[in-house]
């Protein structure tokens, strides 16, 4: 039996007392016959001696858009880092298209949080996208590479940004370019770590439109870490709610609507409201 995990300090989540953990709540799960893009099997992660994730298991079928939710410090970003192979689990495993996490990075596109990269770096959108295509920073860009960059920028509604310096882009434009970068290798799975945090209202709405299109795709699976209820409502085909352990896995309306999960529903809504206005 698992011990109660020690976790980093976190913001107050809910006024309602948390119910005792009685194992994961599984609601409507993906069809078992579907091809699995990501399989998380009893993933347990410890960082600096602290258990961050404990026995987390779920899977994502081809083309499914999954929102990964939970309070601050619940281990959402750690889970993404484990998917990317940056963090190794102490027990359990994550496989992407049958390969261990970290060995199939061309199959995974990653959109970081806006705050985590250098906005002063002298680079254009084209160079950033081609760098992901090549695995190194380009000195010169070939015609074929430029065409691919243009095509992927067109897909996210940002074709005009191709030769723009990154430093001059708005928050929403920057995230479009990073989404284009993530999509340029035609991945099977795209990972989005709170991509609209710090983006203005208009940019956030436009970005959600693009995510909704990805959600409608039957080819590309996605994991979106978000605190934004609007993003869940518009994009999520399935929701996983974690808090160190897997709390619930099912359809968005099941997790938000079930009376028996009122604490979770309250927590999710409460979380959205407790964030600054630009996070909602």
């Amino acid at each position, binding site marked *: 039996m698992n011990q109660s995990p020690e976790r980093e300090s976190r913001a107050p989540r809910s006024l309602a007392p948390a119910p005792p953990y009685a194992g994961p709540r599984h609601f409507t799960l993906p069809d078992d016959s579907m091809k699995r893009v990501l399989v998380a099997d009893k993933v347990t992660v410890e960082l600096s001696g602290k258990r961050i994730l404990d026995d987390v298991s779920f899977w994502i079928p081809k083309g499914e858009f999954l929102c990964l939710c939970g309070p601050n410090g619940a281990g959402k970003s750690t889970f993404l880092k484990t998917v*990317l*192979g*940056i963090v190794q689990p102490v027990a359990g495993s994550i496989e992407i298209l049958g390969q261990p996490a970290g060995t199939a*990075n061309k199959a995974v596109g*990653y959109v*970081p949080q806006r705050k*985590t*990269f*250098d906005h*002063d*770096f*002298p*680079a*254009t959108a084209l*160079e*950033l996208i081609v*760098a*992901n295509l*090549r*695995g*190194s*920073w*380009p*000195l010169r860009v070939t015609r074929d590479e430029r065409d691919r960059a243009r095509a992927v920028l067109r897909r996210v509604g940002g074709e005009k940004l191709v030769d723009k*310096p990154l430093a001059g882009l708005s928050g929403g434009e920057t995230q479009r370019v990073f989404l284009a970068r993530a999509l340029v290798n035609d991945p099977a799975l795209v990972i989005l770590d709170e991509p609209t945090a710090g983006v203005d209202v208009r940019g956030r709405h436009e970005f959600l439109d693009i995510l909704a299109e990805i959600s409608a795709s039957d080819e590309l699976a996605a994991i979106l870490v978000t605190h934004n209820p609007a993003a869940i409502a518009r994009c999520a085909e399935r929701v996983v709610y974690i808090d160190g352990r897997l709390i619930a896995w099912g359809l968005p309306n099941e997790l938000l609507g079930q009376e028996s999960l009122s604490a979770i529903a309250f927590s999710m809504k409460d979380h959205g409201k407790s964030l600054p206005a630009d996070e909602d």
Partner: protein
Amino acid sequence: MNLLTFFTEPFAQPFMQRAVIAGMAVGGLCAMLGVFVVQRGLSFIGDGLAHAAFGGIALGLLLGASVSHATWIALPFTVLVSLGIAFVLRRGKLRGDVATGVFFAVSFALGVLFLGLRPVTAQPVNVETVLFGSILAVGSSDLLVVLAVCALVALAIIVTWTRLAYATFDPELARLSGVKVELLDYMLLALTAVVIVVAVKTVGIALVSSFVVIPAATARMLGRSLHRVALFAVAIGVGGAALGLLLSYHLNVASGATIILTLGAGFGLALALRKR
């Protein structure tokens, strides 16, 4: 004096020829390294490692080496300090300026301690010569060492350029694309240490650290892509060294200080143009 003699007269002198070649080589290479270290928020690494080199030279003197041979003790000493800084930065517990500041202070203090521990019979050492060097006093053998080191380091940077650039933009994304970020971090600081040890002996601490910071900072305002920034920085480092030496010759003023002021004037000009 016509314009031609303004340029040719100083370079008729062998010491000026050596000085300008050494200055342009060190200026260009430090500027190239500076593009990466400044972009990574390690602007003071030049200053820090130059002071660490002093600790290494002092250790060499304590072990009985002459001032010129002590450089070969300073080289591994400074490279170790640079690897220590890279290790601390990788642990992510300290900012670059803090890590550099701590290592710089400790190695400088060790230098002072080492000099004090020398036997009283040992030849006195002029600390100012060790610290401030003189570009006009570069000998032929020193020049050959500077050129050889500069060529090797430039080659290493050019070969790894595209990966270094990616790792400088965002280590996490570069790592996910398969770049060996950790190895490149150690390599960059170790190469910077090698160049600085060799350069400190010939051009002095103040000039080395300004060659690392000022051309890169100036070029950053002029270029829109990293390789253009690097080309501008190298041109500014090389040009600043040559022009500064020419001016110092004709004005009969200190050469190192004139080079730094020339680089500073270029920075001011770029800043003024940028604001318009």
